[in-house]
C-alpha cells in the first residue's frame, strides 16, 4: 500500500510540519538514512497521518530507528497498564499471591498490640537532639544580582488555565538548546567536612518487627552504596544493619564490599559468620574462596569451590575459579607446600617433616581429583551425588591421615586451620583424644627420636630400627611394624640383656599400632615395654590412649594418672584425665573411684616434672631403679643441685635486670647444666639472646621450651621475636597468632603482629625463601630434640657417677658432630637423606661435616639431591666448607660442585637473596680457586662460571 502511494506523492514537495521532502517517506530512503533526528521527524509525520496513513511504513520506520538508536524517545508510546494477559498464569499467580500474603501479614500485625499506644507526641525519644534554635531565619534570596540576571524569562507562575495552552515540544527544544548553562549559574557554598556516620544504631525499646524493618533498610542502603561504587559507605551501612539484627545476607554483602576494598581479613571473618549461620551459602563459599585465593591459601580456596560445585554443579564461575586456583597451586606448589607445612609444623611441633609434606601433596591431589570429579559432575549432573561421594572416598583413601570429610565440611580460617588439622587427623587415625596428638610432646616425637644415639643395639637391629623410624615418619606404619618386629626378633634372638633398647622398640611398635588403630596389639607392646622398663613415659601414654580408644576408661584413667605422676606437665594427659573423669562419672556415678584399679605409685626417681612445688628434679630415667645406693646418692646430689640452681637462677635474673645479658646467659647456661627441664631458664635465656641479637640461639631455646611445654606463651612470643630477627616473618606471624590464640589480650603481641605482617607483605619475593627456611628449621628441632633425649640419658648417668664435671654444653656440642659423622658415613642416596644431613649441618654450622658430605657426594647429583631445598643458609655453608676444607685437598672438586650447584633449582633465587657480604665470600672462593688453577678446569671455565654466579 505504502509502496504504491509514495511515487504519486513525489511531486507534492515537502511535508507540512517539518518541511521534509515527501520523497523521504519511502522504504528505500528510510532504509539508507542514518540520521536518527531526521528519521524521528519522518516518524512523527507518519504517525500524525497528515500525509496519509501508512501503518507498514510507520512500523518500518520505527524498526529502523530502533536499530539505529534503541533509546530514542520517538519510540516511546503511550501504553495502558499491564493486565493479566501480559503475564503467564504462573507469574500472575505469583504477583497476586505475594500481595495477598503481604496483606495478610500486615493485617495480623495490626491485630497484635505491637506498638504501644502512647498519647504524648514523642515518647521514648529522649535521645533526640535539642530543638533547633527558633530565631533562625534564612533569607531565601541571598544574591540579588544573580537573581535578577536569572529572571530574563517570564517568571510569574502560570495560571492553571494557561497550562492547557502550553506547547511542550517548543519548550523542550528551547531547553535542549540552552540546557547546559544552568549549572554555571549555580552558587557555591563551602562544604563542611563530612562527619562520620554512626556505626551502630540504638535499638533500645524496639520490637522485633521494627528491628527487622530497620536492619533491612540499612542493608538496602548498603546495597545502593555498593551499586554506586562507594564501598566504604556500603560497609558502614551493612555494619549498621548487623548492629540491629545480624543476618547472613548483611554479613555476606559486607564481605563482598570488603573484598572490593581488598580488606581480606574482615571479608574472611564475615564469610565465616555467614557460613556459621548457613553452612551451604554458595555466595559466602565463593567469596571465601576468593579471599583465600588472594591470601594464597589455595587449598582452602579449592575446598570451598568444590563445595560450591557440590551444591551447584552448574556454577560456571566456580568452575572457572577452581581451574585458575588449581593452576596457581600447581605453579606455586613448592611454596604452598612449605607454607602449609610450616603452619602445620608449628602446631604439630615435631610431627616429622616428610609426613606432612606428603600430606600436603596428597591434599593437593585429592583437591584436584575431586575437582575433576566436580567437573565431571557438571557434564552429567545426574551422577552428581555419587560422584561426589566417590571423590570424598578417594580423598579418604588417598591417605590415612587425610582430614576426615566431616572436617572438610567445616573448614576454619587459615590460622585456626593449622591448629585444627592435627586434631582432625587424630580422629581420623582412631584416637579419640584429638588433643593428645597435639598436647603431648612425648607422643608427637617420632618413635625413633630417642635411642638413636645409644649404641647398645646390635648393628643389624639398629639399622632395622632406623628404617622403622623412617617408615613411621613417612606414615607407613604397617611397614614400620614389620621393621620393628624384625629388630625385636633379632635382639631377643641374640639373648642380649638390653632392656632399655628393647623397651624402646616395643614402644615404637606400639606407636605404629596405635596409629593404625590396632589398639589391642598396641596395649600388648606397651605392656612389654613397661615390663622391661617400668614407668617409662611413652609406652604408658600410648597404652592410655589405646585404652581410651577401646573405651576401657578405667585402665586409661589409671595410665594417664601414672603418666601425670611422672610428668605433670603433659597437657594431653591432664585433658584426658578430665575427660575420662566425666565419662566415668556418667558411667559409674559418684562412686566411680571405687571401681578403679589401683593407681601405681611412681617412685620419685621416675618423676620428671613437678611444676607446682618448683622443686628441682633430676631428669633421671628409671634405668637404675634397682640400685638403692644410686638412688640415695641421687637424692643428695639433687638437694645440693637444687640450691645451686636457685642461686644461679637468681644471679641470672639480677644480671638481666641490670642489662648485663652476656653474664646472664652464662648464669642461665650453668643453671641448665643442673636442670635442663626448667622452662623458665630457657625462656629467660632466650630473652637475653634476643637482647644480644642472637636470634638463632634464642629460637633454639624457645623451641626447647615449646617441646616441653607446648603452650608456653612467653616462649611463643620470644620465638616470634627471634623469627622476626631472623627475617622469617611468616613463622613469626604464626607464633604471634599462637600467642594471641592462647591469650588474645596481649597488647605487645598484637602490635608485634601488625609490624611483622607489614614486613611480611613488604617482601613477598623473600617470603618463599623464609618459608623454606622456616620449614627446615623445624626439622632441626627434631634433631635437637633427639639430641636432648640422649643428652638427658647421658646426663642422668653422669649425674649419678660424677659430680657435674661433665657439662652438658659439651655433650651438646659433641652430639651433632657425632650425628653428622655417623650420617656422612654413607653417601646420601636420595634428596631426603641429603636434606636431613644438611639440616643437621646447618643447625650446627658444622663446616667440617659439610665438607665431608660434599667430598663423598658426587657433584653431578647435587641438583637432584638439593631438589628445591636450596637456600641461602645451605648455599653459604657450602661455599664456606668448600673454601676452608675442600679447596686445599681437591680444587677441581670445588669447581665441579660450584658448577653443579649453579644448576640446582632455586639457585637464582638464592643468588638474588645474598647480601653484599655474602657475595664477597663467594667472590673470595672464586679468587682462591683461580689461584689453585688445575688442569681439570680452565680459567675461561672459571670466568664463565663466575658470570653464572653474577660476580
Amino acid at each position, binding site marked *: 500500500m505504502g509502496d504504491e502511494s509514495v511515487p504519486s506523492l513525489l511531486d507534492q514537495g515537502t511535508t507540512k510540519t517539518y518541511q521534509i521532502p515527501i520523497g523521504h517517506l519511502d522504504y528505500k530512503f528510510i532504509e539508507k538514512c542514518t540520521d536518527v533526528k531526521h528519521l524521528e521527524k519522518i516518524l512523527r509525520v507518519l504517525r500524525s497521518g497528515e500525509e496519509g496513513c501508512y501503518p507498514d511504513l510507520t512500523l518500518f520506520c520505527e524498526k529502523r530507528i530502533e536499530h539505529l538508536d534503541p533509546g530514542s524517545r520517538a519510540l516511546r508510546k503511550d501504553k*495502558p497498564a*499491564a493486565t493479566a494477559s*501480559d503475564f503467564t498464569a504462573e507469574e500472575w499467580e505469583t504477583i497476586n499471591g505475594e500481595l495477598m500474603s503481604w496483606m495478610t501479614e500486615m493485617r495480623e500485625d495490626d491485630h497484635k498490640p505491637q506498638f*504501644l499506644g502512647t498519647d504524648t507526641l514523642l515518647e521514648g525519644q529522649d535521645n533526640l537532639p535539642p530543638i533547633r534554635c527558633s530565631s533562625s531565619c534564612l533569607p531565601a534570596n541571598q544574591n540579588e544580582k544573580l537573581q535578577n540576571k536569572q529572571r530574563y524569562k517570564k517568571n510569574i507562575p502560570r495560571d492553571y488555565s494557561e*497550562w492547557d495552552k502550553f506547547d511542550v515540544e517548543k519548550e523542550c527544544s528551547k531547553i535542549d538548546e540552552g540546557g547546559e548553562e544552568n549549572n554555571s549559574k549555580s*552558587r557555591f*557554598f563551602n562544604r563542611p567536612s563530612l562527619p562520620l556516620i*554512626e556505626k551502630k544504631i540504638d535499638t533500645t525499646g524496639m520490637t522485633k518487627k521494627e528491628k527487622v524493618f530497620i536492619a533491612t533498610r540499612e542493608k538496602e542502603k548498603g546495597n545502593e552504596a555498593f551499586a554506586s561504587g562507594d564501598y566504604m559507605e556500603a560497609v558502614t551501612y551493612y555494619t549498621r544493619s548487623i548492629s540491629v539484627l545480624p543476618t547472613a545476607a548483611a554479613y555476606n554483602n559486607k564481605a563482598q564490599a570488603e573484598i572490593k576494598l581488598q580488606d581480606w581479613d574482615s571479608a574472611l571473618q564475615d564469610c565465616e559468620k555467614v557460613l556459621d549461620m548457613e553452612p551451604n551459602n554458595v555466595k559466602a563459599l565463593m567469596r571465601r574462596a576468593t579471599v583465600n585465593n588472594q591470601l594464597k591459601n589455595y587449598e582452602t580456596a579449592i575446598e570451598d569451590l568444590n563445595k560450591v560445585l557440590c551444591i551447584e554443579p552448574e556454577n560456571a564461575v566456580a568452575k572457572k575459579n577452581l581451574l585458575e586456583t588449581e593452576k596457581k597451586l600447581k605453579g606455586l606448589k613448592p611454596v604452598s607446600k612449605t607454607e602449609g607445612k610450616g603452619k602445620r609444623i608449628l602446631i604439630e611441633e615435631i610431627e616429622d617433616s616428610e609426613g606432612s609434606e606428603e600430606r600436603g601433596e596428597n591434599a593437593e591431589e585429592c583437591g584436584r581429583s575431586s575437582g575433576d570429579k566436580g567437573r565431571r559432575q557438571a557434564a552429567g549432573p545426574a551422577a552428581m551425588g555419587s560422584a561426589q561421594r566417590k571423590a570424598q572416598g578417594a580423598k579418604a583413601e588417598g591417605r590415612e591421615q587425610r582430614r576426615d570429610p566431616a572436617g572438610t565440611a567445616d573448614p576454619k580460617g587459615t590460622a585456626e586451620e593449622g591448629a585444627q588439622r592435627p586434631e582432625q587427623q587424630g580422629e581420623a587415625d582412631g584416637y579419640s583424644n584429638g588433643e593428645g596428638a597435639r598436647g603431648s610432646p612425648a607422643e608427637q616425637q617420632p618413635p625413633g627420636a630417642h635411642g638413636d644415639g645409644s649404641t647398645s643395639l646390635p648393628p643389624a637391629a639398629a639399622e632395622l630400627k632406623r628404617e622403622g623410624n623412617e617408615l613411621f615418619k613417612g606414615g607407613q606404619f604397617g611397614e614400620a611394624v614389620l621393621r620393628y618386629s624384625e629388630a625385636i626378633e633379632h635382639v631377643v634372638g641374640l639373648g642380649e640383656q638390653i632392656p632399655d633398647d628393647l623397651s624402646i622398640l616395643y614402644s615404637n611398635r606400639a606407636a605404629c599400632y596405635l596409629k593404625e588403630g590396632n589398639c589391642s596389639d598396641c596395649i600388648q607392646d606397651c605392656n612389654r615395654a613397661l615390663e622391661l622398663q617400668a614407668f617409662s613415659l611413652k609406652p604408658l601414654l600410648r597404652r592410655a590412649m589405646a585404652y581410651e580408644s577401646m573405651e576401657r576408661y578405667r585402665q586409661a584413667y589409671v595410665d594417664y594418672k601414672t603418666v601425670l605422676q611422672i610428668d605433670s606437665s603433659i597437657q594431653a594427659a591432664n585433658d584426658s584425665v578430665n575427660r575420662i573423669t566425666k565419662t566415668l562419672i556418667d558411667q559409674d556415678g559418684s562412686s566411680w573411684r571405687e571401681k578403679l584399679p589401683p593407681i601405681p605409685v611412681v617412685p620419685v626417681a621416675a618423676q620428671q616434672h613437678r611444676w607446682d612445688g618448683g622443686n628441682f628434679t633430676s631428669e633421671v630415667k628409671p634405668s637404675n631403679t634397682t640400685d638403692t645406693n644410686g638412688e640415695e646418692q641421687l637424692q643428695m646430689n639433687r638437694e645440693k643441685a637444687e640450691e645451686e640452681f636457685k642461686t644461679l637462677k637468681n644471679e641470672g635474673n639480677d644480671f638481666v635486670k641490670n642489662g648485663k645479658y652476656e653474664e646472664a646467659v652464662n648464669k642461665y647456661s650453668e643453671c641448665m647444666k643442673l636442670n635442663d627441664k626448667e622452662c623458665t631458664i630457657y625462656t629467660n635465656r632466650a630473652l637475653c639472646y634476643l637482647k644480644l641479637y642472637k636470634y638463632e640461639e634464642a629460637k633454639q631455646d624457645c623451641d626447647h621450651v615449646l617441646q616441653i611445654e607446648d603452650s608456653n606463651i612467653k616462649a611463643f612470643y620470644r620465638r616470634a621475636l627471634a623469627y622476626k630477627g631472623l627475617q622469617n616473618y611468616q613463622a613469626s606471624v604464626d607464633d604471634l597468632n599462637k600467642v594471641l590464640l592462647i591469650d588474645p589480650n596481649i597488647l605487645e603481641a598484637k602490635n608485634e603482629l601488625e609490624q611483622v605482617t607489614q614486613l611480611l607483605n613488604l617482601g613477598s619475593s623473600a617470603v618463599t625463601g623464609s618459608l623454606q627456611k622456616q620449614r627446615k628449621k623445624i626439622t632441626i628441632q627434631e634433631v635437637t630434640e633427639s639430641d636432648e633425649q640422649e643428652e638427658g640419658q647421658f646426663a642422668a648417668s653422669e649425674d649419678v657417677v660424677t659430680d657435674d664435671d661433665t657439662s652438658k654444653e659439651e655433650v651438646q656440642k659433641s652430639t651433632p658432630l657425632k650425628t653428622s659423622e655417623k650420617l656422612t658415613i654413607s653417601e646420601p642416596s636420595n634428596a631426603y637423606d641429603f636434606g636431613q644431613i644438611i639440616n643437621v649441618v646447618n643447625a650446627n654450622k658444622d663446616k667440617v661435616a659439610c665438607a665431608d658430605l660434599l667430598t663423598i657426594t658426587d657433584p653431578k647429583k647435587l641438583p637432584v639431591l638439593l631438589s628445591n631445598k636450596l637456600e641461602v643458609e645451605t648455599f653459604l655453608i657450602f661455599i664456606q666448607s668448600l673454601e676452608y676444607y675442600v679447596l686445599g685437598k681437591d680444587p677441581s672438586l670445588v669447581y665441579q660442585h660450584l658448577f653443579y650447584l649453579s644448576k640446582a633449582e632455586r639457585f637464582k633465587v638464592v643468588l638474588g637473596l645474598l647480601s653484599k657480604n655474602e657475595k664477597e665470600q663467594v667472590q673470595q672462593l672464586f679468587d682462591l680457586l683461580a689461584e689453585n688453577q688445575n688442569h681439570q678446569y680452565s680459567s675461561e671455565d672459571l670466568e664463565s662460571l663466575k658470570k653464572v654466579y653474577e660476580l
Partner: protein
Amino acid sequence: MAAAAGPERPQVVAHVQQALSYTLFDCKWVPRSARLLCLGSAARGTGVVQLYELRAGRLELLREIEKAKPIKCGTFGAASLQQRYLATGDFGGSLNVWNLEAPEIPVYSVKGHKEIINSIDGVGGLGIGEGAPEIVTGSRDGTVKVWDPRQKDTPVANMEPVQGESKRDCWTVAFGNAYTQEERVVCAGYDNGDIKLFDLKTMSLRWETNIKNGVCSVEFDRKDVNMNKLVATSLEGKFHVFDMRTQHPTKGFASVSEKAHKSTIWQVRHLPQNRDIFMTSGGAGSLHLWKYEYPAQRSKKDSEGAEMGVAGSVSLLQNVTLSTQPISSLDWSPDKKGLCVCGAFDQTVRVLIVTKLNKV
C-alpha cells in the same frame, strides 16, 4: 517497538481503581500496614481525609474525616513507627498533626503560612533519618518553614525572601542528607524554576540553580544518607537528576536531564527499597519508571584541580498511561516493594503493582 515488554522488564499493573467523589490532592501509604490515605477537597470546599484498606482486589473505606479546609498534602515522615501521626498542610496555610485513631483534634496545629501549603515533608520519624523529627512546609506565600513538633507556634527555621523581594510560589519541598544527628538539608523548588538547597546545620543557602521552568517536585533519592542524588521535575515535561555527592566551587552539582511525559511532570518518587529507581507522573496521566546508572567515575578533577561531579545516565524501564488527567500524587509503599498508589485529577485513586523490580 522498543517499549515492547521484554520478559525481564518491570511491568506496571493497575491492581485496584477506586473512584472518589472529591478532588484528590495527595495519597499516602500508612507505614507498616496495607492501608492508605487519600487527602483532598470536597465539592463544598471542605477538606477530606479517607482511610482505605487494601483487601483482596479492592479498597475498603475504613474511615472518612472531614475538616474545615481542603487538605493539599500530607506526610508520615516525622512520625514514629509506633504512633504514625499524619502531618498535613491545608489551603488555609495550617500545619496539623493528626492522630488517626482520634482525629477530632489535631495533636499539633499551627497556622504557619499566610497562604496554601503546597508541599510538606518530614524526616526523623519512621526510623528514616538521624536526628530530631522535623516537618518542612512550602507555601504560596513564598516561605519555607521547618517545624519541630516539640515546639509550639513557631518554626525552628524559616526561609523567606528578603523584604521588598517579590515572593515566589514554593511548589515543593524535600528533606535530605539526614545521615547524622546534625546534618540536614531542605531543598525547595519554586514556580520560576529556582531550586534552593538550604543547609539546616549551618543555616545557610548552600546551593541554588534555576531550571527555567516551574519546579513541580523535588526529591532526594534517600533522606537518610549522605545526600546522593536529587531529582527535580519541571512544568515543561523535563526532569533533572543532580549528583549531590560532589559540589564544584563554581559549577555546583553535575546533572543529567531527560525529557519524558509530553506534559508537566507532577511528581517524582524514588523506590524506598532502591534509590536508583524512581517513578515520575505526568500531566497526561502517564507514569514513567526510570533507572539511574552511575558513571564509571562519579567525580573528576577539573583543570584547576577542584573536584567536580560526573552525572550518570537515566534509562526508561517502563511507561504506562493510566488516565487522561494529570496524576498529581504518587507514593510507594515503604513495606511492600513495588506496591504503589497514585491519585489523579480524574478523581480516581489507583493501586499499582510494579513487577520485577528485583531484576533491574
